[in-house]
Structures are given as C-alpha cells and as structure tokens.
C-alpha cells in the first residue's frame, strides 16, 4: 500500500510518517505566479519551502501534481526537454551560492551560457553586462573564494541572470549573509527587479524580507500553504496564531499605504469662495484645519485654523497655500509620509494620481492605525 493512496488524503503528516515511514514534504500546494511578479514563499525550516522551489525546476521530482509554465507541464518534460527548459526559461540562485571554486568570477557568471553552447566571446559579453548590473565590475578575474559572502551571491545572481531566464528562483539567497549586507542586498534586489522585471519565486524564512521584496506572499507550515496574499493582507489580517507570531516582528508601517491611514479633513473649502465666510464656517464647524481645493476638486493645500484667522487678503492666502506642505499620493508607502508629517506643522493632504483631494493624514490618524 502506498502513502499516495487516496484513502490517506485525510491523514496527518505524522500519521503518514509513522504508518509508511515516509515524510510528506508538500501537500495540497497550489498557486499561480503572474508574469513579472515576485512571489515569496515563506516558512520555517522543515516547512517544505526549499522542496517546493526545487520541484519547480525538478531538482526534486514530484510524486504527483503538475507544474505549468505558460502552457507547458514541467513534470512531463523528457530529460532533453528538461535540460532545454533549464537552459532557457528558468534559473536559480542558491542559499550557499553553489559557485565553482576552481573558476574565476567571469567564468562562474558564464556557466549557464557555456552549458548552452554559446561561444566564448558572446558569453563574456553577456556575462559582463550582468556583472556590471550587480556591481562586480573590475572583479572578473578574481577567484570566487577571495570574495565576501555578499559578493559571492552577486556572482550567483549574475550567473542566473546571464542566461536571460523568464523565471528566477531564489532559494534563501540572502540567508547566509551578515544582517547588514542582507538588508543592503535586499533593497538592491528590489531596485534591480524594477529594471529587469523577472517572474520571481523567492524563498525566505524572514517575513521582513518577504515584505520588502514580495508582491504576494505564501506562508507555509508542515508542507502546506496556510495563508497567501499581499504583504498588507497578511500583516493586517493574519489567518491564525502562527502567522500572527511572524507578523509581530514586522513593523506595520512597511506595508501600510497612505490611503489606509488618511481621514476626512475637518473642513473642505473651495478656494473661490469668500474669505469672511470661511472664518464664520470655521467657528461653526469647530474645525482645527481646512483643506483647500479648486473648482475641480484638486488639492491646493491644508492650513491650520490659527493661521487662517490672521489672513487679511486672498493674496496672502494664495501665498500661504503655496508655502504649505505638498500633497502625498494615496498609493505611496506610509513611511515617507510619516517623515513628511513630522516636518510639517499642518496635516498633509492625500491625493490620487489626478491630484484630486481624497483626505488628509494627521499625526493622530497615523498613530491610531499603527497602534491597531
């Protein structure tokens, strides 16, 4: 009797292990990765995340299930087709680099191209571009053992990129590095990804990393995906205690958008209206600040009540609006908004891409949403 038999589908991982002496590495794992998306798989060691990424490139064969890249089922490729698939469509960056110690940096970066049978001149040219891209210009002739961990992983990245794959698999690429270097490499990768826009499956055990690089995150435990969603969804609505424990270490402001923390202004004032009426309205509404808009609803700025009371002419008002804090985009991250707010004496207006006023962020609105 096999552990794969349908009647065993309901059994737990430990039941199957004691009954068949086999470990369930992955079970019921289904997900789609969109073109150009960075999909992060996160979990502790033993959760099956490394097995998962190796199944995608068939370094580990799946016992059942399918993996589709575009229309093609990877699990049904022949030996030869698999080789071509690995040579052209997909490449991988490894946790412990997997570099060839007997070769220099350039010949390491070339490896994928060399295996493909590309001429020496052409592969040097292509690999050079990638080495420049990852910041290793001038290190081509060094032995890889002479490089620091961070630089070795840059070689690994250049090697993976040199074959111009559509899909990039990253198996905990930064886990072996010092924390400082790790953070630096992470943000560099995020920058790089904006430029190269590869479809990426990124494995990590660090939610902080997942949130920085990921468009979507899947959290795994015991071979199963327990939650999948955008960083914001996962941090704001963790599905169970296990996920909550992870999210506690991640600061919320990393995933919050400005729109999530903005509130309605105390008073919206269309600029063309009479100034004396504004002062009356201020008193009746008891407003502390006023957001000014033009006739089409575009934000002009936010002013405090005290300042408005001292304004004598509309020229003076125009001048003060020009001096007031510039608006912030509703889709941008909350972190730069906090900085802006700290340097401003007034609330900061929030606008959409058409400059239309959507709300304001105030010190209390941000503090409230971060404390939740």
């Amino acid at each position, binding site marked *: 009797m096999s552990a794969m038999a349908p009647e065993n589908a309901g059994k737990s991982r430990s039941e199957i292990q004691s009954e068949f002496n086999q470990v369930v590495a992955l079970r019921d794992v289904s997900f789609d990765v969109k073109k150009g998306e960075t999909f992060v798989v996160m979990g502790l060691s033993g959760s099956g995340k490394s097995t998962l990424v190796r199944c995608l490139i068939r*370094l580990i064969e799946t016992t059942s299930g399918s993996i589709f890249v575009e229309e093609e089922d990877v699990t049904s490729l022949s030996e030869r087709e698999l080789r071509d698939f*690995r040579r052209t469509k997909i*490449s991988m960056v*490894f946790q412990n680099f*997997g*570099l060839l110690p007997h070769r220099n940096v350039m010949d390491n970066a070339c*490896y994928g191209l060399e*295996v493909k049978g590309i001429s020496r001149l052409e592969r040097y040219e292509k690999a050079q571009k990638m080495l420049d891209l990852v910041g290793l210009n001038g290190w081509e002739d060094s032995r890889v053992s002479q490089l620091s961990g961070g630089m070795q992983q840059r070689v690994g990245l250049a090697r993976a990129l040199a074959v111009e794959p559509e899909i990039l698999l990253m198996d905990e690429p930064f886990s072996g590095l010092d924390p400082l270097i790790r953070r630096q490499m992470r943000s560099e990768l995020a920058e790089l990804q904006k430029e190269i826009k590869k479809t990426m499956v990124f494995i990590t055990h660090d939610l902080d990393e997942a949130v920085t690089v990921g468009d979507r995150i899947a959290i795994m435990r015991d071979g199963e995906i327990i939650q999948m969603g955008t960083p914001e969804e996962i941090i704001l609505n963790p599905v169970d205690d296990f996920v909550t424990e992870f999210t506690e270490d991640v600061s919320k402001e990393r995933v919050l958008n400005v729109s999530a923390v903005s509130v309605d202004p105390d008073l919206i004032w269309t600029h063309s209206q009479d100034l004396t009426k504004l002062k009356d309205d201020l008193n009746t509404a008891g407003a502390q600040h006023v957001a000014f808009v033009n006739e089409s609803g575009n934000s002009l700025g936010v002013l405090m009540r005290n300042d408005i009371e001292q304004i004598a002419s509309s020229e003076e008002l125009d001048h003060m609006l020009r001096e007031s804090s510039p608006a912030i985009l509703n889709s941008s991250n909350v972190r730069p908004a906090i900085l802006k707010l700290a340097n401003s004496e007034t609330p900061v207006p929030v606008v959409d891409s058409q400059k239309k006023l959507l709300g304001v962020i105030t010190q209390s609105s941000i503090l409230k949403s971060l404390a939740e």
Partner: protein
Amino acid sequence: MSTTDKEIENLKTGTSRRVNISLKKIYFPSVVILATIVLSTMIHGAGFEFALDFPIDTSKEIEGFLDDSVDWIVINFGDFFDAISDALKVVLGKLRDLLVWIPWPVMMALVFIIGWKVASLKIAAMSVIGLAILATVNLWEPTMVTVAIMIVSVFLSIVVGVPVGILAARSDAVDTGIRPVLDTMQTMPSFVYLVPGIMLFGLGNVAAIFATVLYALPPCIRLTNLGIRQVDASVVEAGRSFGSSYMQLLFKIQIPMAIPTIMAGINQTVMMALAMSTIAAMVGAGGLGIEVLRAMGQLKEGEAIIAGCAIVILAIIIDRISQGYIENRTS
C-alpha cells in the same frame, strides 16, 4: 537526593553501579575462555582424530584449477599478451634511452625548472641536490631506468585507474563491485603477482610493470572515487539547475573540483610504484632495484644501503614536487 549525591553515596558504600556493570562484563568472557581451555584439553586427551585434523582438504584441487587456468590463458591468449609485451618493451626502451641520453646537467636543469614552476624554488633546489647525490654515488643510469619504468607504470595506472574511479563514483553498483577487488589487490602479497606476470609477459621489465600496475592501481581508483563523491552537493545541484548534461557535469564541475584528491591518488600511485621497484627487480626489471638485489646477493651491504637510499631520495624528490603542485592548486 540528586543523582550525583546518590553516586557519591554508592561510592562510599562500595555499591556503585559501575562496579556491578563491569562484573557482568567480565562474567561472559571468562566463561568462554574457560570453556575453550576445557574443551581443547578434553579433545587432545581423548585423541579425537577428526577434531584435530580438518577432515577435508581441497587445496590440491583448487591449486590445480588455478594452475590450469593460468596455463589455459597463456596458451590461448599468448599472442595477445606477447603483443602487449612487445609494445610496452618498445615504449619503455625508447623512454629509457631518452632519459639516459639526456646529459646530467641538462636533466638537472630540467628538474630544477619543473620543481620551481610546479612547486617552489626551495623544492627545486632540494631536488637538484638530491639528483647530485645520486650522481656522485654512480647511480645515475639505474636511476633513469627506474624513472622510465615508473613513468610507464604510473601512466598505465592512471589510464586505467581514473576512469574506473569515475565510474565507481557515478555508480554505487560499480563501487560495491570493485571494493573487494581493490581490497584484494592491496592486501595480496606483491610477490604473488610476479609469477603470473612472468607467465603472461615473460621475464623482464614488462612483467615488472604488470606487477607494479596491479599494486599501484588501487589508491588511484579509490582517491578518484572519493574525490568525485566529495564534491560539494550544492555545487552539483547548481550545475544541474543550469541544464548541464551528464558529461558537462562531469567535466566542468565534478572532475575539476576533484583534481586535488585525484592528484593525491596519483602521488600515492607513484610512491607505491617506487616501493615495488626492488620486488619487480626479482623478475628482471632494471634500475635501482636490481642494484639493491645484486649487492644483497653478493653480501655487499654498503652498496645495498646506498642503492636503497637512492630509491628513497628519488621518492622524496617526486613526492615533494607533486605535493607542491597539489598545494599550489588547492590554495
């Protein structure tokens, strides 16, 4: 009461658990030893014939079978072995002539340059001093003959050993299959190889080369196997992920990364081949080995010691140069 307290208490009262266990350990062996002595005495006393001499003796049959097999091979494949023998004789002869033909200053300069480039200046200088000692005791020519035999033996060992080692590394079945063969080759007294060597290839250098190759082959196979198996699995995995074929994996990753270990195996092969040179001299191999044997036969112990030391010096020169090469490559 904690465990330690209990143990201290036990030690005081002499009832330590450790003492109890060691009593049990002694009990069984002492019964076995006692039984052995009693049984043996009884059998000798009673004079049981069948228990004193083993009732079956098959040695004659097996010996006869092995003799017949070797004879059969010699009769049926004689031409084949003669052809190999002739070819080897030619190659060895030319190589020996070449080495002897090169004048000593040229040879010393050559060794110096090789030692310097491959290992270090210090090793190069020491090698030349070593060669100079060999020349001053009038053993230059035998040394060159030994070197020629060694080059051929080691070359054959590598040609056979490295591919077999690679096969053994790539297939567990091959590895399991050849392991007892290698164990036999390494533990079998090397004299045993000499007679079949003579019967197959005739008296002389080729039989000596045959015996030397059999003796020197195992470390080459073993260390090639080990070297390839030791290659970091994560690097091999990375190689596979880029779509390497079987051959690309072997020649671009596994063999290059195993080179230091393979070189250590070759170094071992060279040393074992040198160790065989005296034994090989018994079947007619020339060189330093025959000098040792002849001096021994004539009871000229001084000459024998000098020739023996010459083999040691030659071994040290070759070893230091090849070790230097391995070190330079790995660092």
